[in-house]
């Protein structure tokens, strides 16, 4: 997408209407599958549906996932503020400082280091 403005374009109206129709259709199909008994659906010839168990299980799974997400995100947010004494990221010491430490501070220190 080149720009993210909120202008009402004709293409966006079409996208919105298609989304509306498909979501309404999906919801009513879910309701039909959940409530109409198997025998009626089989008599119509529609036999290949998932088990009715999932009509209850999937929403419960989604709900629990959302609740767990809330709890873990909020706990992690607390943890992230207590990281002052963590191990700092890896970086290079500039060569000037290395030289000063080796050669300028004390000659005895250097000979001790290299022996």
């Amino acid at each position, binding site marked *: 997408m080149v720009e993210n403005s909120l202008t009402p374009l004709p293409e966006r109206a079409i996208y919105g209407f298609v989304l509306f129709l498909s979501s309404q259709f999906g919801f009513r199909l879910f309701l039909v599958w959940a409530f109409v008994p198997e025998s009626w659906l089989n008599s119509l010839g529609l036999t290949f549906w998932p088990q009715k168990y999932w009509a209850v299980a999937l929403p419960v799974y989604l709900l629990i996932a959302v609740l767990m997400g809330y709890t873990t995100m909020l706990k992690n947010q607390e943890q992230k503020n207590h990281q002052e004494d963590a191990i700092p990221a890896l970086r290079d010491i500039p*060569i*000037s400082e290395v*030289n*000063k430490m*080796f*050669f*300028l501070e004390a*000659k005895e220190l*250097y000979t001790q280091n290299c022996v």
Partner: protein
Amino acid sequence: MEDERSFLDICGGPLTLRRRYYSSYCREFGLSSARLSLRSVTAVTCTVWLVAYGLFTLFENSMILSSAIFITILGLLGYLHFVKIDQETLLIIDSLGIQMTSSYASGKESTTFIEMDKVKDVIVNEAIYMKVIYYLCILLKDPVKPHEISQVVPVFQSTKPRLDCLIEVYRSCQEILARQKATSASP
């Protein structure tokens, strides 16, 4: 004030470091390596002429002998003028710059001057060849971007002193550079 000490280069040959402190902000370091020895010149000349004489007895052509003489003379002159560096000096003048001079055995001198604006620091860096070799180099910065290193210029490339000599030069240079940074930081 003048000071002279002898050191070794990385191949084991003798070097002489001559330090002259002209004033508190101007210092010069001259490193002289051993001059061309008569022994090596006669050895090379003898081998070349013996080889030429051997070819002459093989081919019976006297051009070989005269060409060997020419090659020896021209080779010696070229070596003295282009290859053999007798002395390398480093002159640091606070707030002006750094000048490097190489004087060849034939008397030729080539100088390089770097302004103090471009000099970021003088450091002793390590290179890993068959062993670890230390060399003094000047870090250059672009005046537009003062926190980036734009170039690295090695110093004393032909005389190649060892670390003890480099530490002396490094300490003297750092004294001058510290003064220069102090004066430039407080306008």
